[in-house]
């Protein structure tokens, strides 16, 4: 006897709105359907209609609260490509440091959530306590904990102060010492092993076929990382290598356990990158165009298009931006958040699992669901057409009438 179980759009197992339609036989999941786009925020519309490009950095920052460096990073990469802008070396290094700080806090946050999903709340509290150290540094360097407002076209807005560097180094030491302990708790504990080993397997073939990205793909043995394949910012200097679980365990299974391994190793990798970046931090300017008013004028005059690719903690984020002369907002702006590519890998992962595995398997790709839902604008003969509330209401009334008259 087969049953259909809907999980979502609003459900305690999912932090954000998405609908999972499960077909179960007994406890075993036979088939999965993912229905996305339960939440639409119209962020791209704001960027194309209401905001000037400088304001759009901050709206990009708010696409995702956790990846609040990644989205601005991708949008500035796209605009810098469109404008052919040269960025000072020091700014590139500071950007790398900020991106890696974000990766540390995001992966630790995820590790805590993963522990919580399997009911291991004491480990959640421990992990988040460890995470607090990097949050303190973010507050010290940026002025607040979450949305750092540091990215700017052609550089960064704030420098890393000399007196902050010893404190950052102290934090890095803390993570270096704490890593073995954290790895012991996560990778040698019986509870975690029982719940995550051989659960939610994504094979290498499936990962390639479904276009999975980020730690989800790397845990399946796909050596894919934008920092390695197409280095941007100052990443060419660091020679980043994609991390796969066989570096630690000696084999690639592609299960939830491997995804924990990859994320923990990436924390270690980020710590090493920041350490090198701080040691090699070049001196110089931090902005290509320090006069903001002039930058706004340049942005208005600019014409061209660019694509920004950035390795966010969850995978590759892509922003496409088109600028048009004498048109202040972005002429076109398209955001592809990493979860969009990873969401389909839920289907092979969940098949054969039990219903009780849904929260941990769903969480294992580190989904950021509200980030993935984007605007779809319909072009009618090249003309822009936006359907407003009134029009929608009119269409709805029309349909009711049609149904009443026996139509479809």
């Amino acid at each position, binding site marked *: 006897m087969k049953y259909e179980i809907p999980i979502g759009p609003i459900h305690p197992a999912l932090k954000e709105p998405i609908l999972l339609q499960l077909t179960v036989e007994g406890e075993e999941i036979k088939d999965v359907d993912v229905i996305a786009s339960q939440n639409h925020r119209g962020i791209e519309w704001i960027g194309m209609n209401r905001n000037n490009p*400088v304001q759009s950095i901050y709206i990009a920052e708010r696409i995702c609260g956790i990846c609040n460096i990644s989205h601005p990073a991708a949008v500035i990469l796209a605009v810098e490509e469109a404008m052919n802008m040269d960025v000072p070396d020091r700014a590139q290094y500071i950007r790398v440091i900020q991106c890696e700080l974000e990766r540390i806090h995001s992966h630790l946050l995820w590790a805590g959530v993963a522990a919580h999903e399997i009911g291991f709340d004491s480990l959640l509290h421990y992990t988040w306590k460890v995470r607090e150290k990097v949050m303190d540094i973010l507050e010290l360097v940026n002025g607040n904990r979450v949305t750092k*407002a540091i990215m700017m076209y052609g550089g960064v807005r704030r420098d890393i102060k000399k007196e902050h560097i010893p404190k950052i180094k102290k934090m890095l030491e803390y993570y270096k010492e704490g890593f073995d302990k954290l790895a*012991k708790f996560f990778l040698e504990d019986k509870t975690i092993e029982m719940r995550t080993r051989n659960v939610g397997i994504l094979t290498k073939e499936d990962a390639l076929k479904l276009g999975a990205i980020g730690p989800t793909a790397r845990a399946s043995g796909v050596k894919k990382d934008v920092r390695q394949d197409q280095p941007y910012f100052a990443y060419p200097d660091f020679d980043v290598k994609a991390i796969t679980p066989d570096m630690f365990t000696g084999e690639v299974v592609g299960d939830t356990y491997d995804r924990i391994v990859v994320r923990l190793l990436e924390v270690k990798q980020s710590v090493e990158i920041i350490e090198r970046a701080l040691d090699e931090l070049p001196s110089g300017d931090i902005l290509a165009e320090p006069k903001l008013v002039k930058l706004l004028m340049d942005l208005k005059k600019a014409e061209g298009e660019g694509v920004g690719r950035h390795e966010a903690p969850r995978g590759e984020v892509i922003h496409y931006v088109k600028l048009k002369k004498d048109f202040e907002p972005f002429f076109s702006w398209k955001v592809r958040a990493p979860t969009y590519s990873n969401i389909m890998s839920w289907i092979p992962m969940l098949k054969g699992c039990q219903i009780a595995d849904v929260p941990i398997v769903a969480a294992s790709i580190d989904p950021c669901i509200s980030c993935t839902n984007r605007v779809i604008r319909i072009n009618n003969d090249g003309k822009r057409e936006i359907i407003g509330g009134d029009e929608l209401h009119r269409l709805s009334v029309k349909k009711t009438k049609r149904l009443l008259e026996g139509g479809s």
Partner: protein
Amino acid sequence: MKFTFIPELFRQLFSKPYTNLFPVKYAPASIKETLEKVEKGEIKITPPVEIPDKETFRGKIQYDREKCIGCRLCIKVCPAKAIEFKEEEKKIRIYVGRCIFCGQCVEICPKNALSQGEEFLMADTNKVNENWIVE
């Protein structure tokens, strides 16, 4: 395979709490009375956590009316549209309730009339309270 977290759990039993302390240890029967007592100096509360770096901290916006020349650049860059222009006086009014503390207006101001202070505890139920309007 064993439960590697158990020793850490026992260690935590005997360690100090990691979280920031609340102003008072137990919830008082009357917050108003407690605050009055604090004003009189009868009881002491745990002070709020210190700001890590006062120079880099981005708190509530501060506005120097005299320096402002009414150029409207801050209005142009404010991502949250939190700033309003007062036509007659050629000055601005900032709604902190909408402010996202990005500091973009501070950066663009040609006369340095805007700055960010240290205040950040501003929770209120009234959207248009005095504390949230800077002019």
